């Protein structure tokens, strides 16, 4: 294979693994937006909290990366459930602007607390030995860890798909997203479904936060820095559409990786420009229901 092709193949693979992490982080957000029309700007903060919990487990309890994942999930879900029961309960009735401001304020509080507790430094969690190194597939160099990421996130995505499309709970969730009022009439406890999905979504974000530290290092401004990326994923994919989020996350992961390769000085410019065009053509996102 020529150098040109191998480079692009490696780029594409890296883009996909980045996109998978983006999907994990933003999957919860799209459901929150779809079901409750709640613009939760603090969602990325939960990925950050997950990352910090895992970091604490690794640093102070001597856990490995993989052992720290369940700790981070449980810890984040508990925090998410508490916040949902206390702060978010109050915001469902208020205007969208109020929700935006409230959740944004919450994000700032999270940023400040993490900064105060853990300090301002960037952290990447150590990768276990058996996941370091590179595969060489027909001259395309791919890191073992990224292959692992793609497999794990792929399995999680498959799990989400199964639960949403094939189970009774999934049917009720889809009904609540499609038409919350009608779902309520049909006897579905939309509020409960929402609380549950919110919590699980934050847990998924935590997985993304912990596993993605090689690409998105943990730092106090994480919640703000990657907020725009998750919003891009959700808006491009279409609110409430998991399939849309998945496609958009992969698309954005790949586009961003290409963009940074072609125009290193441009930063995320190429990706932003393409997203802007997509939103101009389809303001409701790629997979939005009419």
């Amino acid at each position: 294979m020529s150098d040109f092709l191998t480079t692009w193949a490696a780029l594409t693979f890296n883009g996909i693994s980045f996109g998978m992490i983006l999907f994990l982080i933003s999957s919860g957000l799209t459901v929150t937006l779809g079901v409750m029309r709640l613009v939760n700007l603090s969602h990325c903060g939960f990925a950050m909290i997950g990352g910090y919990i895992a970091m604490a487990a690794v640093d102070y309890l001597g856990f490995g990366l993989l052992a720290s994942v369940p700790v981070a999930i449980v810890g984040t879900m508990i925090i998410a459930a508490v916040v949902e029961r206390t702060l978010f309960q109050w915001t469902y009735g208020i205007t969208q602007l109020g929700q935006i401001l409230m959740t944004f304020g919450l994000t700032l509080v999270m940023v400040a607390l993490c900064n105060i507790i853990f300090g301002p430094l960037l952290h990447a969690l150590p990768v276990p030995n058996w996941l370091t190194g590179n595969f060489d597939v027909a001259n395309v160099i791919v890191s073992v860890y990224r292959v692992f990421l793609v497999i794990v996130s792929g399995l999680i995505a498959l799990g989400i798909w199964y639960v949403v499309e094939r189970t009774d709970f999934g049917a009720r969730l889809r009904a609540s997203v499609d038409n919350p009022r009608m779902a309520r009439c049909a006897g579905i406890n939309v509020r409960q479904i929402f609380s549950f999905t919110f919590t699980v979504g934050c847990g998924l974000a935590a997985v993304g936060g912990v596993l993605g530290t090689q690409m998105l290092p943990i730092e106090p401004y994480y919640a703000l820095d990657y907020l725009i990326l998750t919003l891009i994923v959700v808006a491009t994919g279409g609110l409430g559409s998991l399939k849309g989020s998945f496609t958009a996350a992969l698309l954005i992961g790949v586009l961003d990786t290409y963009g940074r390769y072609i125009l290193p000085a441009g930063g995320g410019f190429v990706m932003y420009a393409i997203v802007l065009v997509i939103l101009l053509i389809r303001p409701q996102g790629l997979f939005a229901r009419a």
Partner: protein
Amino acid sequence: MTTEAQTTKAIADFRAQVRWQWYEPLFWLGAIAWYFLFPTYLPLGTQILCAALFALSLDLILGYGGIVSLGHTTFFGIGAYTAGLLAKHGWGEPITCLLAGGALAAIAGWICSFVIVRVQGVALLLVTLGINLVLYEAANKAYTITGGADGLQGIEFWKLFGVFDYDIYGRVSFVYTLAVVFVLFLVARRIVHSPFGLALKGMRENWKRMPALGAALRRHGALIFVLSAAIAGLSGALLAESVQFVALDSLGVQRSVDVLTMLIVGGTGVLYGSFVGATVYMVVRDQLADLNPAYWYFWIGLILVVIVLFTRNGLVGALSDATDWLKRRRGGGTAS
């Protein structure tokens, strides 16, 4: 009541709203009093005025047009850099620099408005923030033009009207800024109390119903966005003139957050909210200047959460609620 009488009453109500309230002259007298009461805090006063004007521009689109922007500092920065670059390259006449800053910001706003009026909700947040981030990166990378992260240094504005030199105590710049802000406040007041302003309020309250009444939503949205961008640009240029420096953070997300917080603390859709919010915010920040920035974020965040959850519309909203409550107690329930 006949339709005619209803119309007359509606017009009378509208007139009553437009009339100057008793507290309005007081407010501006207070601003003038600052000059005499706090002669050592004039630079802070100037900064408050610039911030308030910026918050006012955000209030026009957010409080009246219902357009939420997370990147309004785009236009503030464009105004600041325009004025700064003109002065740096040999044209330091303050009034023309100011107008050029406003004009360029308005043009930028006009270009952005094509996208802005077509998106809502999350996509809107995203587009406004995205435009801001791209511009910030561009200004950061274009080191030779903007000075990058060091900011635009070595700018010098000429004497105001060729007579008044910018003094070290900031007297001239305070008076000049206050005058400009007052004029622009009158403009904003005129806008929101015009039929166009009413159409905007309708848009904010129900953007699905307004087209049914024959309102051209996108045209209204685009117009107020351009006006707001122009005022934001003017406030940026004003700040650049008073501090004789343009920092890269005039395009930073932090400034968008600051201005949004000021507006929310003060209250949206009431014009004076931006002034109250900016004053409270800047004075508190000035007093807590040596606080670790991390703690500052904590307090801003907490304030946002508390204001949204516990007041109807910021400090101005809380104040008017309190006076209503007092009136009702005294009037025995006659006030509505």
